[in-house]
C-alpha cells in the first residue's frame, strides 16, 4: 500500500488531487481511498488531504501519519508546517517551489528524498491561476508511477470539463520539469 499526504491551503484543491488519484487507481481496477482532514473548510488555511492506493481492499481508516510521499502544493506551507513529520525512512517530499533541490535541502535541513518543481509558474502559464493541485500530480507521477498517467485523464475530464485539457497539459509539463533527488530513499 502507498500512502500519500497532501499539504495545501484551503481552496487550492488538495482534496481534489487526492480524489483524482484514488478514482484513477479505482478505474484501473485497484483500490483507492481519499479523504480530507475532517472539519470545517477554511479557505486559505493550511489543510491536509490523504490518499491510499493498493492492489487489495484498503481497510485502515485512520489518518496517514507515516506517508510514503508528501506532496506540498503551496511553497509557503514548507515554513509553516512540519510537512515531513512521520515521513517513512525511504519516503520522498515532493514540493512546489522555485528553488532547487540543494537550496531546499539546505534551508530545511532535509535528508529525505526530495523532488522540486515550480508548479506555481506552470499553473500560471497554463491555467492562468496559481492553483497547483493538478500540476503537482504530474510531479508525483514523475517520482513514482503509482498509477498510469493516462488513467487520470478520465477523472480530470469529468471534474474539470472545459478546462480539463489545460490541466492535463499543466500536469504533463510538471512531469517533464520535476527534478528528483532520490537520495537515501529506496525508490
Amino acid at each position, binding site marked *: 500500500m502507498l500512502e500519500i499526504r497532501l499539504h495545501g491551503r484551503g481552496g487550492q484543491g488538495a482534496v481534489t488531487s487526492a480524489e483524482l488519484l484514488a478514482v484513477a487507481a*479505482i478505474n484501473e481496477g485497484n483500490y483507492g481511498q481519499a479523504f480530507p482532514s475532517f472539519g470545517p473548510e477554511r479557505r486559505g488555511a493550511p489543510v491536509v488531504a490523504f490518499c491510499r492506493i493498493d492492489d487489495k481492499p*484498503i481497510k485502515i*481508516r485512520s489518518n496517514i501519519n507515516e506517508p510514503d510521499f508528501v506532496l506540498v502544493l503551496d511553497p509557503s506551507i514548507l515554513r509553516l508546517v512540519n510537512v515531513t513529520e512521520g515521513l517513512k525512512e525511504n519516503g520522498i517530499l515532493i514540493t512546489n517551489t522555485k528553488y532547487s533541490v540543494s537550496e531546499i535541502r539546505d534551508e530545511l535541513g532535509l535528508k529525505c528524498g526530495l523532488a522540486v518543481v515550480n508548479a506555481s509558474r506552470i499553473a500560471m502559464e497554463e491555467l492562468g491561476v496559481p492553483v497547483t493541485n493538478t500540476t503537482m500530480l504530474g510531479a508525483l507521477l514523475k517520482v513514482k508511477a503509482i498509477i498510469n498517467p493516462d488513467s487520470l485523464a478520465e477523472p480530470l475530464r469529468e471534474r474539470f470539463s472545459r478546462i480539463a485539457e489545460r490541466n492535463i497539459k499543466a500536469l504533463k509539463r510538471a512531469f517533464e520539469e520535476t527534478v528528483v533527488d532520490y537520495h537515501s530513499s529506496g525508490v
Partner: protein
Amino acid sequence: MGNRIGLEVSLSAAEAVKMANVDCIAAYPITPQTHIVEHLSELVNDGHLDAEFIPVESEHSAMSVCAGVSAAGARVFTCTSSQGLALMNEIVHIVASMRLPIVTILANRSLSGPLSIWNDHTDVMSIRDCGWIQVFANNGQEVFDHVLFGFKVAENENVMLPLMIHIDGFILTHVIEPVEFWEKDQVEKYLPVFKPVHSLHPDKPVTMGAFGMPFIFSEAKVAQDEPLIQSKSVITAAWKELGDITGRYYKPVETYRNDDAETLFITQGSYGDTVSLVVDELREEGKSVGLVMDRLWRPFPFNEFRDAVKNADNLIIIDRAISYGGQGGPLAIELRSVMYGEKNQPAITNFICGLAGRDMTIKDFKNIYQRAMEKVKGITLEEDYEYYGVRGK
C-alpha cells in the same frame, strides 16, 4: 453487477436512495450528513429521480413530513446527524409506534456540548430505545447495500417498522472509495414496489397515531416490541437474498479470526476494518486475538453474539459513547448484561475512545490490547471502564 466506481460514500448513499426509487425525501442539512441531501436534491432537480424533495425548516419537521408521507403509503427517506437527530427525537419515537417504514441514514456525530461536528456514537446511543431497526455499515459498499436492504426489511408486511442505518460521520461520509452499483433489474427484483398494509386515504378513513389510554397503552407497546424482535428473521432472509445477488453475505454479528482467540475486540461501525488489521499484527506477534463486530444493533442478536464469543476468555469492548455515571459505555453495559448468567464468563474490559473524531490508529488499538491484558491479569486495579488516551488523568 453494475459499475464499480470511485465515489464519495455520501454520494453513493444518495445514488442508492435514487435506485430505491423513493417517492419523497424530507431533510434538513447538517454536517456531516450534508453531501447526502445535497446530492439527492440535485438528483431530483436534474430529473434523475422522480420524487418530491421537501426542504423543511428543521429536523423535527423532516421526520414529521416523513410520518405523513409514509402514512399515505409512499416510500420516504431522510437523513441527519447528532443535533438534528436530537431535534427530531420526538417524532423518531412516534413513527416507530405508528409502524411507518421510513428509512434513515444517521451520519454518526457527537452530541454537543462542547460543540463538535466530528464522529462518535453519542447520537446513536441517544436513541437506542426508539423502537427502530438499527444496523451499522462499516464501509461505502455496505452503506449502498443497506439502503436497498433497509427499504426491503422496513416495508415487509410482517415488519412495518422504521429502519436506521448508522454510518460513521466523516470517517465514512467524506471518503472516496470504490463502490459496486447494482443493476436496475437487480434492484427491481430485490426491492418490490411498496405495498402498505394500511394507508391514509380520504375514501377509506383510518386513524393512525391515536391517543393511548392506560387500558390499551401496554398492549400497544407489546404489539410494537414483538414485531421488532420478530423482524430478525426477515432481516436475515433479506441479507441472504442480498448475498445471492451481490455475493456479499452480511450477518447480524460479523467475526474475524475469533474461533480460537483468547481475547476478542468488540466493535461497532467502521472501526471494525481497522481493528481487523490490529488483529493480524497481534497474531503475528503470537497473541491470541480476534474480532467481533456488531452489525445489527436492534433487534439485538443475542444468540449470534454469545456464539461468537463463546470460546473467549477476555472481551475488549470499544465504546464511542458515554453513559454518564453509568457502568461504562452503552455497548459494554449492554454486553455485560447479554453475558450475565453464561456458564463461561469472560473478563470484560471496556474502553471509551475516539470521541468527537479523535483519530484511532493501529497503535492506539494495540495500546488498548496491552492495557486490557494488564487489567485482566490484575496488574492494575480493575475498573468498570477506562477513557483511552485522555490527558490529565
